[in-house]
């Protein structure tokens, strides 16, 4: 397996500038500011075909290409470090262990996009990731790698950390920008695209932390080397966060196309040696797959899409046999209801309805028509809302209903769970 990000053993000091430089760190930035033109960098990133690692898998090069160079206005770059999608904890690995890889990559991106001020929008609860990145910024600034006249060139750029304050929707790219403007994190209607009018109405690129962290390697080794890893349609690697009912949860870097079955083995298999009931492959907003469905799959964007789901944020939640899917959906719907920002009627009202119906079923007061109601409300958001939150809740709901409908029917008919309302693996808790 190839490692593009988790390339070194983690030690007490591996996150420091000295350690990063001993691994060849900042040599690529130096070559970029000395020898390359901004458009050369973007061309390499486009040729590499790196897709967004935040959830939507949009090609980064295509996003960058919208930015018009020398148009006389400021441009901004924002790294999305909100890491809010439940089940996802991989950007944190980068922030804690490879903060300079993110910074070097952001500086290279900023050079390509003619950005003077770049931001890292970080979820408010992160503490160690914040301290590690803040000290990396101090180190880089003191070493002349950031700030004015970087490495003696004419390129100036500062990276600032902007900390959120507890809101899931602020991970959505436009809400993230509204939040950096110091306001309520309301998502914005598009068009205009953020690359046309983003932060303070200026052209802005928002990329996930992991997406950006690939940039240094792509520019250093070339697009062909990046494309040599992964599959033709999903080049490179991905950091997958594995959690739930596995023996060894954690972050794994896999070549795109890696077999799910091997990944499950790498994680020590399902807890208590139980059978695999289901997997949510890309954060809770991706559609659930049954154990039988995911077992033979290769983990890449096209295979997951063909199976009716997605690799999303790479937040893989493993669910053992014996888990109650009705209660699991209840946990999700409470969350989406809580996090809806309330701007769009179908989302604001729909999240409340979904949440109330699932609570009613769990209270033993469900009616047979509730299942159809859940379906109908789930579909109501489709394309009618400002951001993807309402849709995501809809996918999660219809995904679970499609695969586990008998559990809902059982609860409605018998006024109790077929699995005792169980969410944990008893023996291990």
């Amino acid at each position, binding site marked *: 397996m190839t490692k593009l990000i988790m390339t070194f053993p983690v030690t007490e000091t591996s996150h420091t500038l000295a350690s990063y430089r001993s691994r060849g760190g900042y040599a690529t930035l130096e070559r970029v500011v000395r020898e390359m033109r901004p458009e050369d960098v973007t061309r390499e990133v486009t040729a590499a075909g790196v897709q967004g690692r935040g959830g939507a898998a949009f090609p980064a090069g295509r996003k960058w290409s919208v930015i018009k160079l020398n148009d006389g206005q*400021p441009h901004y770059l924002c790294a999305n470090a909100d*890491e*809010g*999608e*439940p*089940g*996802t*904890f991989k*950007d*944190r690995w980068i922030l804690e262990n490879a903060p300079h890889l993110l910074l070097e990559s952001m500086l290279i991106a900023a050079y390509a996009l003619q950005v*003077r*001020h770049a931001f890292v929008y970080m*979820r*408010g*609860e*992160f*503490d*160690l990731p914040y301290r590690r990145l803040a000290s990396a910024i101090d180190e880089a600034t003191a070493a002349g790698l950031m700030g004015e006249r970087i490495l003696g060139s004419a390129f100036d750029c*500062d990276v*600032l950390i*902007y*900390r*959120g*304050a*507890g*809101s*899931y929707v602020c991970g959505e790219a436009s809400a993230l920008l509204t*939040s*950096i*403007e*110091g*306001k*309520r*994190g309301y998502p914005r209607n598009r068009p205009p695209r953020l690359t046309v009018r983003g932060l*303070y109405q200026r052209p802005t690129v928002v990329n996930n932390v992991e997406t950006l962290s690939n940039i240094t390697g792509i520019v250093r080794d070339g697009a062909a080397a990046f494309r040599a890893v992964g599959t033709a349609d999903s080049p490179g690697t991905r950091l997958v*966060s*594995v*959690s*739930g*009912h596995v023996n060894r*949860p*954690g*972050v794994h870097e896999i070549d795109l196309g890696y077999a799910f079955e091997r990944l499950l083995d790498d994680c020590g298999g399902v807890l208590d040696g139980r059978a695999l009931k289901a997997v*949510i492959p890309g954060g*809770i907003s991706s559609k659930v797959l049954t154990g039988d469905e995911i077992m033979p799959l290769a983990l890449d964007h096209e295979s997951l899409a063909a199976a009716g789901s997605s690799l999303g944020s790479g*937040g893989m*939640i493993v*669910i053992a046999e014996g*888990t109650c899917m009705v209660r*699991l959906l209840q*946990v*999700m719907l409470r*969350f989406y209801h*809580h*996090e809806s*920002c309330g701007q769009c009627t179908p989302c604001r009202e729909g999240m409340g309805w979904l949440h109330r119906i699932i609570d009613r079923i769990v209270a033993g007061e469900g009616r047979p028509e509730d299942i159809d109601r859940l379906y109908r409300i789930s579909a109501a958001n489709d394309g009618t809302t400002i951001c993807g939150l309402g849709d995501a809740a809809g996918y999660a709901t219809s995904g679970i209903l499609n695969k586990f409908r008998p559990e809902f029917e059982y609860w409605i008919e018998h006024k109790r769970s077929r699995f005792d309302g169980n*969410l*944990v693996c008893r023996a291990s*808790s």
Partner: protein
Amino acid sequence: MSASPTFASLVPEFDALRRRFPPGFESSLVLPCLRRLQEAWGHVEDSDIAALAEYLAVPRVQIEEALSFYGQLRREPVGRWHVEVCRNVSCSLRGAETLLERLSSKLGLAPGDTSADGRFTLSTCECLGSCGTAPVVLVNGVYHENASAPEIERMIEGLERA
């Protein structure tokens, strides 16, 4: 309205923050300043909202809206020890619900409540980006990962004596 002593003492930090941001980004300073005020004082006081609006020359309503939108910001004090249990999917699969029940009975508090002596607040929170070490409990913002009920209960007994 005059600013609290907390606000006054933080003005030099706010000035430094202002210099780091690009010109014209005053509005952006609302969140970091509110976070800093809360960190220093435990919550955000009404008088400081007015002082911040004046200091940044932003509308007061923007600050009030931010305070009501962001889950981590608060206008009321919480207990000296703020215990928050993540109840999202991965933590629930690893026993967060039982953990919450046990903490609730240990502290004699329903989630959302503060003890009469002002020492403890028990809350729930959403995914903390730490699902691989679920369940996760925050105590005054510090992550306690792979939290087991006996271990967290022992810690609370320690805090009760502190």
